[in-house]
């Protein structure tokens, strides 16, 4: 069996989970194993309704008062019971923040491997080989597993939800998990957003985004002038926000916003995975970096190899003319 676990994201099936279902459908066909989709815990019955079209053998609901809201304690215990009982060959989820929070605990509880943040799957006969990015995406690795059950999580956009096969599930069932209040050691409060900024980068047509290559806050006006000359919004990678040079709502990436502007002009950004997942959907990517091996160039349409301190002011000046 291939088991895909759906995640609730504020009432809907998480986009990464939809991609995991696609990965599951493909793995199931390739290996000749049945596909089961599990709606677990938070908002599970609504997730089941939303997933009712997805082509699968089984659609399974696992609800319990103790996991009506997410906790790492509750989810890891519940999923461990389900995996022990059903013995799937592979358990698939999206590589979300929730998955990072609890899936390693299932790995440790059941003593099974968890291959996280997978970008591609290939096959050596009947054995799947999983590719992951390593060394800040400068290299990738192929991973082989030896275990009767393996946990997998997929990087966003490794599979496309456009490839979803529909047709519904043959069987629907309930799985009864056995949990007690004392299983939950932590106390989780409601999710909240920090004060909204009024800046919506997700609708911006042009974005000029700055990374650690800017070296110092004193150099930031160079990039701000360029953005203003182009009529672009300014954004950044995480290090710039961590240093306090730009506010958090300017951040693009897994912990910030995901954008897909007409043009994404990246300035001094190396292209760590955490940043790239937030901007790789841009229509055109132009990147300035002095390191010709910078991973950002792998996804760029235009790779500008040079010193941003020279190029940016000159470009601004020419645009202003």
């Amino acid at each position, binding site marked *: 069996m291939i088991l895909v676990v759906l995640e609730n994201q504020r009432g809907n099936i998480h986009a990464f989970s939809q991609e995991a279902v696609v990965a599951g459908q493909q793995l199931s066909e390739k290996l000749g194993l049945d596909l089961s989709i599990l709606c677990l815990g938070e908002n599970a019955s609504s997730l089941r309704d939303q997933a009712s079209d997805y082509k699968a053998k089984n659609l399974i609901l696992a609800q319990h008062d103790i996991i009506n809201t997410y906790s790492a304690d509750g989810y890891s215990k519940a999923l461990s019971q389900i995996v022990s009982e059903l013995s799937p060959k592979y358990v698939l989820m999206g590589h979300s923040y929730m998955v990072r929070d609890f899936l390693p605990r299932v790995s440790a509880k059941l003593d099974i491997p968890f291959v996280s943040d997978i970008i591609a799957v290939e096959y050596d006969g009947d054995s799947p080989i999983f590719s992951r990015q390593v060394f*800040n995406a400068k290299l990738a690795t192929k991973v082989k597993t030896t275990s009767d059950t393996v946990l997998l999580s997929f990087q966003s956009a490794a599979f496309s939800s456009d490839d979803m096969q529909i047709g519904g599930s043959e069987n629907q069932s309930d799985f009864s998990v056995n949990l007690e209040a004392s299983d939950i050691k932590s106390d989780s409060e409601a999710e909240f957003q920090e004060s909204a900024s009024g800046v919506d980068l997700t609708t911006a047509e042009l974005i000029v985004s700055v990374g650690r290559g800017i070296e110092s806050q004193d150099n930031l006006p160079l990039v701000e002038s360029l953005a203003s000359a182009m009529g672009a919004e300014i954004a950044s990678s995480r290090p710039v926000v961590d240093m306090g040079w730009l506010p958090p709502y300017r951040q693009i990436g897994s912990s910030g916003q995901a954008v897909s502007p*007409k043009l994404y002009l990246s300035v001094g950004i190396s292209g760590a995975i955490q940043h790239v997942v937030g901007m790789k959907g841009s229509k055109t990517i132009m990147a300035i970096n002095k390191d010709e091996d910078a991973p950002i160039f792998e996804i*760029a349409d235009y790779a500008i190899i040079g010193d941003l301190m020279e190029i940016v002011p000159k470009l601004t000046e020419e645009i202003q003319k």
Partner: protein
Amino acid sequence: MKIAVLTKAIPSYESSIRVDSSGSWIDESVVNFVVNESDSYALEEALQIKEQLNDDSEVVVVIMGNENNTSKVLKDGLAKGADRGIFINNENIDTDPLSIAKLFSEHLKEESFDLIFSGLQSDDLGSGQTGVLIGELLGMSTATLGIETKMEDGKIKVKRELESGWFQWVTLPFPASISIQSGINEPRYPSLKGIMGAKRKDVKSVSASSSGDNKQKFIELFIPKTEKVTERIEGDVDSIVARMLDILKNTLKVI
């Protein structure tokens, strides 16, 4: 309060990363090893908690790897203010997060730490699992992506970063293993006094038992192929800027 901080020595951003002759690891001889970025925030958070508590709390830096790659990072942690260190000597290249977590747990268990802090993920292997795995293996409560912590009524409150600008507070009883997101604080630099003092601090050296239990293995490291057709633009500044202007004006029509 006994706090362990798991730190890792990883290749610096500037290091040249090349596949070695085995094809399954990198050529370490051309690499400069530095502390993993989020681990330095984890250490700072631990040091600040110790300073706030102002009691007999202890911060212990724990590092695994071979001596060559790790010694500078360990010394730096002690110089910044950690009270002592644990060095787990491991000459093997372990890449399975569960095996790595078991090796750590073996040596952390007897110390009975109240808190284990780790960076949310290493910038080399990037599995992002070690802190949570160790928490489960040692029966601790866990939280990830901590962006703020507070001690409250004998528990620790952690502000967790969720996706797309959402957050959540989680309160954990001790013992707890918490992974720390970068940006949570401002990591300090070691003082001269700290650097001098570090030499006298206790470092316990232990050897990692060979695990032999890697249930996931790297079979090949490779340079990712680009799927896009990328135009390379280089040369003198004037010609680069002229080509960029041409693209912005005539191809993309955005200015």
